[in-house]
């Protein structure tokens, strides 16, 4: 597969939010977490773009939409190193890193098939634990650790 050039491949937006430095393989998880498939705003998505730090990255530009920190913190599970750029009139007015929330409610799936959350209509709830730079999820119900983030489907 040939390398693609990121230059001008993704067009600029006037006002909105740009999520950058998303690992390419996590891009669709981020889309799910922010429920962008049901978002009426113009959304530009780039995937497998070249990145010096990540190899292949994804980028999402959402016009005329600004997220709460709480909403953004959820994507830390799929893209811990993502950056958030707030755009006003084509200018980046604020740039910040995603912060990992202490608790994750209703986004991730527990990997334990015997967990009550996988068998009854129970909202999942996890404490986040960082071990060896990896984010792990400790289930509030079955007390088991989920190593890989598995998003719940909307």
């Amino acid at each position, binding site marked *: 597969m040939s390398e693609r050039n990121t230059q001008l491949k993704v067009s600029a937006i006037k006002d909105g939010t740009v999520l950058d430095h998303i690992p390419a393989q996590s891009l669709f998880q981020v889309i799910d977490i922010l429920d962008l498939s049901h978002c009426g705003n113009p959304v530009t998505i780039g995937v497998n773009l070249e990145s010096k730090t990540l190899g292949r990255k994804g980028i999402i530009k959402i016009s005329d939409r600004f997220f709460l920190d709480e909403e953004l913190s959820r994507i830390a599970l799929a893209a811990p190193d993502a950056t958030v750029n707030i755009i006003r009139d084509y200018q980046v007015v604020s740039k910040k890193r995603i912060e990992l929330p202490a608790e994750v409610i209703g986004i991730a799936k527990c990997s*334990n098939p*015997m*967990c*009550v*959350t996988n*068998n*009854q*209509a*129970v909202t999942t709830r996890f404490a986040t634990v960082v071990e060896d730079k990896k984010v792990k999820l400790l*289930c*509030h*119900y*079955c*007390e*088991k*650790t989920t190593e890989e983030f598995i998003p719940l489907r909307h």
Partner: protein
Amino acid sequence: MSKSLISINDFSRDELLHILSVAREMEETGSSKLLDGKVVACLFFEPSTRTRLSFETAAKRLGAKVIGFSDVANTSISKGETLKDTIKMVSNYVDIIVMRHPLEGAARYASEICDIPVVNAGDGANQHPSQTLLDLYTILQTQGRLERVAVNMVGDLKYGRTVHSLLQALSHFDPEFIFTAPEALRMPAEYKTFLEKRGIPFLETDSLMEHLCDCDILYMTRVQQERFSDPMEYEKFKDVYRLERSMLAGVRENMKILHPLPRVGEIAEDVDNTPYAYYFKQAQNGMYVRMAIIACLLGYR
């Protein structure tokens, strides 16, 4: 004091000691009318005769009435009723719910959807806190202390939830551990890391004889058939350890043998009449500890 008893990890050192002191009072007092007029529900979504009888007797010895079921076959759960609906309904009738459920986290969920205390009597392979409390009570009773006790855990240390919970509860009391298990059923790494972080020493062996004389408590467990998906694997391990009277020469004088019961072949019957056997008294202690749990959660002391 927490409102419910769901996981041993929810309890501080002081709360554990509080329940043990109430249990001692229950053992000394015997039956009473402390919970006269109260109704206790024992909801066993999966059968467990021993635990159910122990909780039901505990409630009755305190003067409470008991309702409930011992398996789901004749209930509306077999018609597809959700756990939420069963708990919501029962919680309107009674003062406290004691429940066992095959799903892990079921008791925690139940405690969040009703306004009365819930006692977890086992949620799948996860927690069984009344077992842990009765183990602590028995260790205290036999050794006169909980601090600095050397505990040798034997058998299925990989899947055995009783040993995992006991290990966590004892970590408050400066213990030493010996883990005796075959290679395939060793103590999981997460528990060893837990101990290392707290500076708690432990040894591992696959030989029952190796550290038999180095412990105050010999905690025997059964290799549970239900945890094995492959029956050949189970056959390989089911008789891996068998404690016999002849092996007990040279053990510490204060050493006591505990077992959560039922036993299969791990402890030969000739051990029963030695001064070291304590598993039947341990089971009896379970009743006093469960009396204490129910009484404490309903506001006594």
